[in-house]
């Protein structure tokens, strides 16, 4: 079976600034791919272009059999892609339950229902509750998202993406700002995801990267510097040169 | 042939007036993210105050000099007293506030000056027609074209060559950064708001001999100005300039060539531009 996510020579400029240059990736179904690189390397821009938030200035993106270059974000989402955001992008005044319920509603036809009270759609509510519990947010259903702790908000971010049961999951620094305990829990949860879902994660925390990733892609100044297995990337001299500082742990 | 040149000149005069209005509105938006819906009201104030000044002093030129600062003072008051407290709130609240002021100005003008249509004569010296291209063209309109062109040039030079202009451009590009560099951004806001309002007042005085002075001119003018900035792109002086030209000429030619459809010509132009460029001709990309 072919790659589930392919970018071909993807480029994105902002006026005079080249944020992405010639980025080509092939991600296999079920793969766990980590995207790492110093700040400003273009990682979030890459996600934005893949998910449709931005149009690429050159190159193509394919999701499964679909050519999705330049499609609007909601069309790409409906084709089986879900993402989280680097900075919490929640519906802050709504409760955690309402947030997740909307994410669930997005992939059903329920939005067409104009006259049924949403509270009667108990299947949505139950599924939302279950998902919140899985994310470690049980009991927080009725709390407005802005009243959640930062770590809980990060968890809610991931919950919204998981609610879509996507084919491809893009996680943008899911553990940023989290305590070690929260990070460990998130890592455990992500590693338990079924292999019918492909996960691409941007991370700075190398512990998380090495715990999850099958393959790592290193971005630097908008270009792919190296791509391969964690061992190969770690041993790459160029990577060692430019990307120090996230505390590469010694693995046995 | 002569007909088209003359109409183009008429359109140019109208475009210059529109530019004065659009530039002010666009600058204010570019800096403060607020569409000043009272802009038409300040224009109208300029026209009515111009009327009164001419009556009191007998001189059109005195009005041209004294009215804009007076109107700018009104803008200053609005910003300082009413808009500032809303900076903590959303831009929408700020826009709605200006909408409320549009109501107030509209009725105050009606109250103080009455509801009849009034007119202001062009000043002596400019109230004649110049023979050109085998026919006569009003000297006053040539004056408006010259004045508008001079102001456009002045604005452009001011923004691009002076330190103050650099500060304003910096503020438009990135408010937080500008403030972090020690510039009192709140003062810049007030200054630009007052200046933009003053431009509207100036436009009101200058336009009075051509457009007439009547209640309702505030919103008529606001709408055309909005169409200009939508077409040209909000927040860009270049956009205001070309938008004014496009709409000014379209309106003028529309009135003479298609009088029944004259009403909708500029709306059609706007619709056409928006279909192709949702942010206006010179506005930023949407994605």
């Amino acid at each position, binding site marked *: 079976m072919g790659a589930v996510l392919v970018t071909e020579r993807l480029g994105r400029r902002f006026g005079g600034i080249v944020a992405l240059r010639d980025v080509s990736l092939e991600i296999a179904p079920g793969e766990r791919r980590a995207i790492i690189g110093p700040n400003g390397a273009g990682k979030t821009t890459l996600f934005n272009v893949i998910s449709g938030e931005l149009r690429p200035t050159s190159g193509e993106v394919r999701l499964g059999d679909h050519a999705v270059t330049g499609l609007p974000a909601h069309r790409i989402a409906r084709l089986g892609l879900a993402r989280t955001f680097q900075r919490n992008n929640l519906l802050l005044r709504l409760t955690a339950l309402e947030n997740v319920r909307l994410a669930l509603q997005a992939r059903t036809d329920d*939005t067409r229902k104009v006259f049924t009270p949403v509270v009667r759609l108990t299947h949505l509510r139950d599924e939302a509750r279950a998902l919140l519990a899985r994310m470690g947010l049980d009991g927080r259903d009725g709390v407005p998202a802005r009243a959640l702790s930062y770590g809980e908000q990060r968890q809610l971010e991931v919950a919204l993406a998981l609610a879509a049961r996507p084919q491809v999951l893009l996680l943008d620094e899911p553990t940023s700002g989290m305590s070690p305990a929260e990070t460990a829990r998130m890592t455990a949860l992500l590693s338990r995801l079924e292999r019918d879902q492909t996960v691409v994660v941007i991370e700075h925390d190398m512990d998380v990267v090495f715990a999850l990733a099958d393959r790592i892609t290193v971005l630097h100044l908008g270009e792919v510097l190296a791509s391969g297995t964690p061992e190969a990337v770690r041993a790459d001299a160029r990577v060692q040169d430019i990307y120090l500082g996230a505390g590469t742990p010694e693995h046995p | 042939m002569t007909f088209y040149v003359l109409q183009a000149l008429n359109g140019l005069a109208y475009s210059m007036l529109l530019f004065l209005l659009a530039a002010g509105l666009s600058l204010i938006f570019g800096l403060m993210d607020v569409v000043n819906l009272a802009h038409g009201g300040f224009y109208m104030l300029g026209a009515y105050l111009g009327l009164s000044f001419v009556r009191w002093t007998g001189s059109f030129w005195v009005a041209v000099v004294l009215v804009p600062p007076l109107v700018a003072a009104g803008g200053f008051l609005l910003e300082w007293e009413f808009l500032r407290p809303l900076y903590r709130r959303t831009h929408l609240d700020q826009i709605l506030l200006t909408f409320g002021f549009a109501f107030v100005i509209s009725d105050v003008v009606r109250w103080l000056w009455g509801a009849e249509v009034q007119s202001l004569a062009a000043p002596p010296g400019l109230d004649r027609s110049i023979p050109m291209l085998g026919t006569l063209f009003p000297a006053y309109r040539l004056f408006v074209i010259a004045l508008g062109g001079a102001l456009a040039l002045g604005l452009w030079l001011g923004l691009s060559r002076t330190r103050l202009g650099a500060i304003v451009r910096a503020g438009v590009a990135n408010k937080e950064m500008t403030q972090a560099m020690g510039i009192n951004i709140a003062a810049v806001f007030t200054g630009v708001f007052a200046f933009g309002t003053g431009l509207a007042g100036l436009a009101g005085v200058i336009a009075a001999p051509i457009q007439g002075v009547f209640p309702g001119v505030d919103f008529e003018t606001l709408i055309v100005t909005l169409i200009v900035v939508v077409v040209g792109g909000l927040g860009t002086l270049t956009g205001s300039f070309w938008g004014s030209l496009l709409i000014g000429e379209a309106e003028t030619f529309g009135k003479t060539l298609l009088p029944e459809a004259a*009403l909708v010509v500029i709306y059609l132009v706007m619709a056409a531009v928006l279909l192709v460029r949702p942010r206006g001709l010179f506005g930023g990309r949407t994605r």
Partner: protein
Amino acid sequence: MTRAAWPAAAVVLALVPLGLSRYVTTTLTEILIYAIFAMSLDLLVGYTGLVSLGHAAFFGIAAYTVGLLSAHGATALALTLPAGVAAGAAAALLVGVFALRAAGVYFLMLTLAFAQMAFAVAHQWAGVTGGTNGLAGIARPAVPGLDLGPPVPFYYLVFILFVAAAWLLRRIAASPFGAALVGIRENEARMRAMGFDTFRLKLGAFVIAGAAAGLSGVLFAYYNGFVSPDVLYWTSSGQVLIMVLLGGAGTLAGPALGAGVVLVLQNLASSYTARWTLILGAAFILVVLAAPRGLVGLLTGRWARSS
């Protein structure tokens, strides 16, 4: 708003004409008509977060539709009511397709511009619209077996339609569609990332709001007996917006209440001064500065959310 409030209000409103004066009945008729108008705008402003400065366009177009049909002898309510509602919906579809594609502030300006265009057309296309004089002599609609001429029967027609509109709008607000609208208000970008076609949803809300505004426009034409370009003027759009803001956006009940407050104020003010526009503007400024959540917000002491 407690769930009992609506049925209680309905009962009170149903009984009013039986006991109180003709003046009260006709005033309440006008209030209920504007309440429908205000609730329709609330769907846009309060629920979807779309502030339209030109909502009077749909109200006025529907009113003119009735005026025109009436002038040509079509008086059956069964014809004019759907025609007016359809006119409002169609106009909203046309405006929405353009205005909603534009981001943020542009939307606001475009709604204003389109409403002004409608005003200009009504004002100048004298052959069809009657120009500044408008269309007069609109007789009450014909309903088999009923005489809607006197105030009380007409009040009940308006009352029934108000109840129906309020019920429908509340159902819509409480539906998954309504929840999606609220999501758009809260964070449209995230909604798109989740897979919602927000343009289509906003357009749907816009058309529903236009249809409901059309309903109120139809009733207004019959209530007033004539239609003039004033209904399309920007002050008309501003007035319904302040009804929504004053009452409390996002609650449906708030705007209905706001309609009552504004109209009562207008009636009072008009007997003392001609400066109603000035007062309205001042009220607008006051509400924005001091009471952004409106009366309902003040009464309940917190943001009355629509979920």
